[in-house]
């Protein structure tokens, strides 16, 4: 594959130009993704922010472009919306704690006790559910928690009474904990795996017993991993509407569900935008705290 001479000359010339002006190459590489992001994503966030100050004319359903705080006033003054916001944040926190409790011993086992083969197996066993369809993993729990589902069948075999978990906040909590669990396991495992063996030996040499080493060495070093995982579990729960819609009941509405129906049913984009700024604000605070705790270095 011998290229033609003029072509080769042009390419060498360009190569020379970029060699002399290295920043030119950097610019060429960086400009397209950055421009695309600025033009679409940052502009979108700006549009979200701006349109949250607009209103919709209830008669014409046209968006009216004058500035008002009405949307935010509606949200803060209505106890229904307050309850929804608090429920969303509360369940997001509960899911995060649950996943941390489920994930930490597993991550510890993978990082420090399992043999390489077991570790590789467990790693794939955690990774594959993470990438398999989210929607379907939520849907399965409808079948499991159903009145005549797998869970109640199992309980019946054990001679235990049926549980009425389907379409409740309990179901929402279980399903969220299930679908986001891999997001917690992976960073926790990563953080635990990075703890040098020598630190644990030093701790033992200095006379610390197993639990004390765990409490004073392992836990503080693993904490950034837990916080890193919690960013995902918390943020993903905060911004979801599918799980409350499918697994929850009539009193399981999340912020996402209100946004969803404001856009899809009542066509009130400004109000939806205003409500969506609440998780945005919560996440901004959360990310700031996470950075202080060193979560970003843990990833």
């Amino acid at each position, binding site marked *: 594959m011998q290229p033609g001479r003029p072509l080769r000359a042009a*390419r060498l010339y360009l190569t020379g130009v970029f060699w002399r002006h290295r*920043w030119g190459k*950097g610019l060429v*590489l*960086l400009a397209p*993704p950055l421009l*695309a*992001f600025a033009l*679409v*994503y940052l502009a979108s966030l700006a549009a979200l922010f*701006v*349109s949250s100050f607009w209103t919709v004319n209830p008669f014409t359903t046209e968006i009216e472009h004058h500035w008002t705080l009405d949307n935010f006033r509606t949200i803060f003054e209505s106890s229904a919306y307050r309850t929804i916001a608090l429920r969303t944040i509360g369940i997001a926190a509960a899911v995060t704690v649950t996943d941390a409790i*489920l994930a930490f*011993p597993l991550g*510890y*086992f993978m990082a420090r*006790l*399992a043999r*390489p083969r077991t*570790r*590789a197996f*467990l*790693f*794939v*066993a955690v990774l*594959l559910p993470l*990438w*398999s*369809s*989210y*929607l379907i*993993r939520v*849907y*399965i729990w409808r*079948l499991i928690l*159903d009145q*005549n589902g797998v869970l109640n*069948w199992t309980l019946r075999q054990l001679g235990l009474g049926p549980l009425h978990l389907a379409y409740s906040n309990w179901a929402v909590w279980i399903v969220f904990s299930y679908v986001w669990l891999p*997001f917690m396991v992976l*960073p926790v495992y*990563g953080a635990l*795996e990075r703890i040098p063996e020598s630190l*644990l030996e030093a701790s033992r040499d200095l006379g610390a017993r*197993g639990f004390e080493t765990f409490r004073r060495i392992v836990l503080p070093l693993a904490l950034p991993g837990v916080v*890193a995982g919690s960013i995902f579990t918390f*943020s993903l729960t905060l*911004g979801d509407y*599918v799980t409350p*819609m*499918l697994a929850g009941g009539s009193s399981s509405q999340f*912020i*996402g569900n209100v946004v969803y129906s404001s856009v899809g049913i009542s066509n009130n984009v400004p109000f*939806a*935008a205003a409500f*969506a700024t609440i998780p*945005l604000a919560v*996440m901004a605070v959360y990310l700031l705290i996470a950075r202080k705790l060193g*979560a*970003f270095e843990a*990833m």
Partner: protein
Amino acid sequence: MESRGTRLALATWAALVTAFLWVPLLLILVYAFNESNIQSWPIPGFTTRWFRAAWHDQEVRDALWLSVRAGLIATGAALVLGSAAAFAIARFRFFGRESVSFLLVLPIALPGIITGMALNSFFVFNHMSLSLWTIVIGHATFCVVIVYNNVLARLRRSSPSLLEASADLGADGWQTFRFVVWPILSTALVAGGLLAFALSFDEVVVTYFTAGAQNTLPLLILGYIRLGQRLPEVNAIAFAVIVLTVVPVALAQRLMRDTGVLRRGAANVTEAVESSQITAV
């Protein structure tokens, strides 16, 4: 340092949590063959007819085709933009470098409803009607970071001196790319592409806001589940989707491992795949 009892307890815990992750997935594989219309347990008998029904359902076919098209185009865009950004970050030092990776991660780190709502406001703002292209824009936005992470991980492991050596031997930029960079990167790109496609193919939270009246496969399934329609078909589709996503992900995982990019075996896929989504450079 752990006592026997602690070890045993941890092993049991690990087994239970793994079972918790997998039992539901295995259940859906069983439900797909449910003979009855009623989704109760245990299923009364086995049949494969729902697979046939789903395959011949025109709505399902249209939705599948839309999902495939959106996924392919978004993956293509993500491959170009993500690797360009990864090259710039890996090879250059400049002001604001850390903000770049933070920016790329934002569409995934922020709650899905925000990304979806933001894009929706943007489209309404610009009077763009929702189409295949708005879906693609949405998907590309959060697929970029997947490719970016994979390529960046690979570049960090390869030595920049290879490029200098190539230039010293008289190669121009294209030849260096073709004969040095490409062989180093190709598997990372394939892995990143597979993961990006898997993510796009599966996405529902953001897609709803960028699709309007169109149905991607996940949106169609969501509609069926909500209305309680055609659940046997949903089970069959779920079976297919689970199997079809597991294969590319397992493949991507293998591609990132076999080339020695991930030093400690499968272990470091943590960084490469998920948790490095918020990468501090």
